[in-house]
């Protein structure tokens, strides 16, 4: 117990240092706004990746509709700030909670579907949500919502990224998280060991969807405009790529995946004609040479000392 607390404090201190240093760099202009927006994008992708990883990587439910949850958070929070003048945090949480409700709804058929059938069903759900936005004039239909106040900044994004990582990490590293993993490993055995697999699958979907919704809200309040097409199934694929490339079932992996892919994509901006060609080639090569992802299922940890201690 003491050890776990130690790792917690080390992590917290490290996080605060990272935050402060970057904030200082931004304030002094050493990091310009393009760099800042790159950081923010990385963090949004971290939130998306880590939350999808809970569903796909830890609970083993093959979901490719994450963009749908994200869009719910984006739209709902934008409506809250635009039409109801809600404070940013409240708007974000409303978006996240609504996405979580959608996660609950989507989690239910997932109880009957497995593997690729679940995948196509979640993809379908994501598309249905997109089509609902497309057909809702209140949120601008195809043109989407514009004029969303740009409130997302380094501080906000940092706080939410930290919350996401801590919450999901704490969840996964508990008996509840182990229950989710056991569902992934062998559902029949998990049931036989007294795990209510239904409950944990739905829980994973709800938590995952909540944070995807938060990411959507943060993204909407970063880029001024949202429209349905930004949340199509290709977007879901992008998030899936982050998770698998980082290492399915590793939170640190999703973080690394988000950083690597976002930077790669930003870097390739200077080569528009071959940008996507290089991106896709790298994707294929990385999967061939690291089929388990960059980190496999390993995790970073702040207390290498603690690990040794724990073993005995």
């Amino acid at each position, binding site marked *: 117990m003491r050890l776990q607390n130690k790792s917690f404090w080390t992590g917290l201190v490290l996080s605060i240092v990272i935050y402060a240093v970057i904030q200082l760099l*931004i*304030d002094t*202009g050493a990091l*310009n*706004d*393009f*760099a*800042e*927006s*790159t950081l923010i*994008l990385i963090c949004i992708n971290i939130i998306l990746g880590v939350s999808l990883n809970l569903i796909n990587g830890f609970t083993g439910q093959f979901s490719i509709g994450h963009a749908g949850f994200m869009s719910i958070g984006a739209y709902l929070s934008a409506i809250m700030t*635009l039409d109801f003048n809600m404070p940013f945090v409240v708007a974000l949480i409303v978006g996240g909670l609504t996405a979580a409700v959608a996660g609950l709804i989507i989690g239910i058929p997932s109880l009957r579907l497995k593997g690729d059938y679940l995948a196509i069903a979640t993809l379908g759900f994501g598309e249905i949500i997109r089509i609902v936005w*497309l057909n809702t004039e209140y949120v601008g*239909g*195809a*043109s*989407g919502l*514009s*004029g969303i106040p*740009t409130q997302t900044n380094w501080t906000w994004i940092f706080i939410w990224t930290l919350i996401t990582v801590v919450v999901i990490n704490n969840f996964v590293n508990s008996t509840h998280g182990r229950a989710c993993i056991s569902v992934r490993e062998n559902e029949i055995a998990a049931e036989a060991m007294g795990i209510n697999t239904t409950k944990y699958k739905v829980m994973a979907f709800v938590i995952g969807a909540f944070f995807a919704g938060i990411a959507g809200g943060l*993204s909407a309040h*970063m*880029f*001024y*405009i*949202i*429209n*349905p*097409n*930004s949340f199509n199934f290709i977007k879901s694929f992008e998030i899936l790529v982050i998770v698998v490339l980082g290492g399915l079932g590793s939170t640190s992996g999703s973080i690394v995946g988000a950083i690597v892919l976002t930077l790669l994509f*930003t870097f390739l*901006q*200077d080569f*528009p*004609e071959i*940008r*996507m060609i290089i991106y896709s080639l790298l994707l294929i090569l990385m999967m061939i040479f690291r089929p388990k992802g960059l980190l496999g299922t390993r995790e970073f940890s702040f207390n290498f000392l603690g690990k040794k201690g724990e073993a005995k």
Partner: protein
Amino acid sequence: ACGSGKQAASNGGNNGDTIKVGANFELSGNVASFGNSALKGSQLAVQEINDAGGVLGKKIEIVQADNASKPEESARTAQKLISNDKVVALIGPTTSTNALAAVPVAMEKKIPMVTSTATNPKVTVDERTKKVNDWIFRACFIDPFQGKVMADFASKELKAKTAVIYTDQASDYAKGLSQFFEETFTKGGGQILEKDSYQANDTDFKAVLTRIKDKNPDVIYVPGYYNEVGKILKQAREMGIKATFLGGDGWDAPQLVDIAGKENLGNTYFSNHYAADDKSPEVQTFVQSYKAKYNQVPDGFAALGYDAMKLLADAIKRANSTDPEKLKTALAQTKDFKGATGTMSLNENHDPVKSAVVIKFEDGKQVFNSKINP
């Protein structure tokens, strides 16, 4: 962070012997074809300007960046061009969605942005505050104008009484055109029998066309892009729909004939920024040099990319400076600027006031039909 960005930008503009202009276009992604055309057009413009000695004694240099056809990338691309590349002004993006995402960046950084083809009114006028976005300009006319032109054309020239609107509902642009077509057409005494919609990338339109055929309208307004429009025209004619088809500038592409087949293009009209067979010297020099450089007939995106760049260069010349503040004022005062797409003056909303042309197809060829002034 705000102030420093601005300062850096204006410094960058004054240093060296080039004037950097950022081109924020869709070079990859699903509307890459628009962005690439626009970029080619603006590159041609830069070449012509530099060959003629540049502006303010300096050459213009385009710093191109790809927004991957995504709004969030478009915003970031604008940031990168302004903060990293220190451009004095931006041109692009081509679609309203992507342009809207770049608007707050240009506004915050106080850098002029001239979009070539973002036709949605919201781009230059904030939807909620109704205030003009003072750093944002455009080279194209806006959706309402085009929709109105075609509605007038339908009721006055074609004497049409009934119409069906068939729109790409997932496209802002097409929706805008339809809306103003409908308003004007009904005001003129016409009747809209039905509004139907399809989505970009659809290929089979027979279900809805069968429905439209049943209604038997005088005209069918299809303000979409040529890829779908071509298929719609072909399938409609094959099904025996004889009504007149009307459209907008999205029809303007050489591929339309290949896709629809020239026998199916009879009795169709569309509104456009310019006609390649327009005899005016601005149009002809543009078309000729474009063909010479790229071995292609320019489409509307290329023409407007060209005009956006020229418009900007013209303003730099008049401002006699690359100071953003002065540039902005000069842009807003643009008057009787002669571009490939016509003579334009910017109104109080930063939207060009210029004529539109109606083009008709004859034996698969675009033929200038009439010019409509605002």
